[in-house]
C-alpha cells in the first residue's frame, strides 16, 4: 500500500496507520479514504496529496 504526502505541509498518510483521530481505520488505502477527509495537519483536501 502506497504512502501519500500532503504537498502543502508534508504530512504523510500511511495506510497502515490510517487516521484514527478522524475516523479512518488502519489498513485503509488512500484511494478508499473518504473524499471529504482533509489533511489532519493543515486541512488541505485529498487532491492536494501526491504519492510519496
Amino acid at each position, binding site marked *: 500500500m502506497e504512502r501519500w504526502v500532503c504537498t502543502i*505541509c*508534508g504530512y504523510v498518510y500511511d495506510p497502515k496507520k490510517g487516521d484514527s483521530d478522524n475516523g479512518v481505520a488502519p489498513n485503509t488505502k488512500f484511494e478508499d479514504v473518504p473524499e471529504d477527509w482533509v489533511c489532519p495537519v493543515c486541512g488541505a483536501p485529498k487532491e492536494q496529496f501526491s504519492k510519496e
Partner: protein
Amino acid sequence: MPVVEIKKNIYWVGVVDWNLHNFHGYSLAPKGTTYNAFLVLDDKITLFDTVPEKFKLDLYHQIQQLIKITDINYIVVNHVEPDHSGALPFIIEKSQPEKVFCSTMGQKALLSHYHQENWPLEVVTNNDKLSLGKKTVLFMETRMLHWPDSMFSFIPEDKLLISNDAFGQNIASSFRFDDEVNLDELLFEAKHYYANIILPYSALVQKTLAEVAKQGWDIDMIAPDHGFIWRSHVKEILAAYQEFSLQKLKPKAVIVYDSMWQSTEKMAKAIAEGLQKENVSVRLMSLKTYHHSDVMGEVMDAAAVICGSPTHNNGILPLMADFLTYMKGLKPTNRIGAAFGSFGWSGEAPKIIASILEQAKFELPVEPIKVKHVPTHEDLKKCKEMGETLAKAIKQKVN
C-alpha cells in the same frame, strides 16, 4: 530605534510597533510588538526577513545606518506572512540582491503574494548550507509552523537560531534581550502567543524540537521575528515550548460565558463554587470583558473549558459563537468541556454549545444544564453539583 549588534557582525535592524493592539486582526497584543529583521555583515551581506509594508522606510533607515542598501547581496525569507515580507518588494527594488533564498513553499507563496516572476529566488531545503564568507547558514523547513513556507535559519559559527514566528512574543520595548525584562512576563506573553498562533501545530512543534536536537545544533541564542531575543533563557523557552506543545494541563477550569440579564452569569458562579469546593482552580471570563485571544491564553493549561450562553433567537449569543469558532480552529486537545445557560422559552443554547464542543473533540462528562429565566436556589445547587462532578473528572485527567 538604534540597531543592535546581537552577535559579532550580526545586527538587529527590525522595527518596534509601539501602537499595535490587535495582532493580525485576530489576537490582542496590548503591549504592541516588534518585527525583527537581522543583517549579517560578511563577504555576502545578508538580510534575514523584513517588516510590514508600512514600516519599509524604517527598515531602510535601519539598514542604511550600517551599510548602503545596495551593498546587500542576499536576502533570506524565513516566512512569507506580510508582517515579515511586506517590505520585501521595496527592499529588493532598492538593493537589487544577487539572490533571495526561501523554502519550496516560500517560493510559491512569494509568487502568489507579490506576483514577481523576475525576482532572483533560490529554493533552499533541509541540510542545505549557504556560505556567507566566514559564516554559514543552515536551513530547516518548519512547514506549518505556522505557515507551509516557514523555515529556520541557523548560523553555527555564532550558535544563532533565527526562528521566524516560533518562540516569539508580542511586546514592544526599547530593549532587545530576554535578560533585560522580567522573565515571568516574557514567558506569559510567549504562552499567549503560542496559544493564539502555534497551538494547532503542537504535534509539529514536538517534531521540530526533536529534529533540532537530532541535528545537534548548538544554540546559545534564539532570535524570533517578534519580541525579545533569547540569550540568557534559551533553556527556559525551549522547555516552555516542550510543555506548551505537550499541552500539559493543570487542575484548572476556564468558565467562559456571555449573559443578557445575568442569569447565565449566576449559573457560572455556582458552577465555579462547585469546582472550588473540590480544589480545582477556576477562571471566570465574560466574553464582554475578555477577547477570545485572552481566553485562549487561559485555556492553554486548563483541563476544562466550561461554556455558557443564554438562548437568543433559538441560538447562542454572537460572542459565544465567535469564541467557539476561534477555539475550535486552534484545536486544543485532551480537554473536558461542558455547557450551560438560561433561556426564556425554547432553550437550545446549551445543546448547541455541547455539539460544537463535541465536534472540537472535547470530552463531555456531564449533560448540558439549562435554567428558565432566573435560577432558583435549587437550580444553583444543580449548577454547583455540575461543578463538583466536573472537578472529579478534571482531577482524574490531570493525575
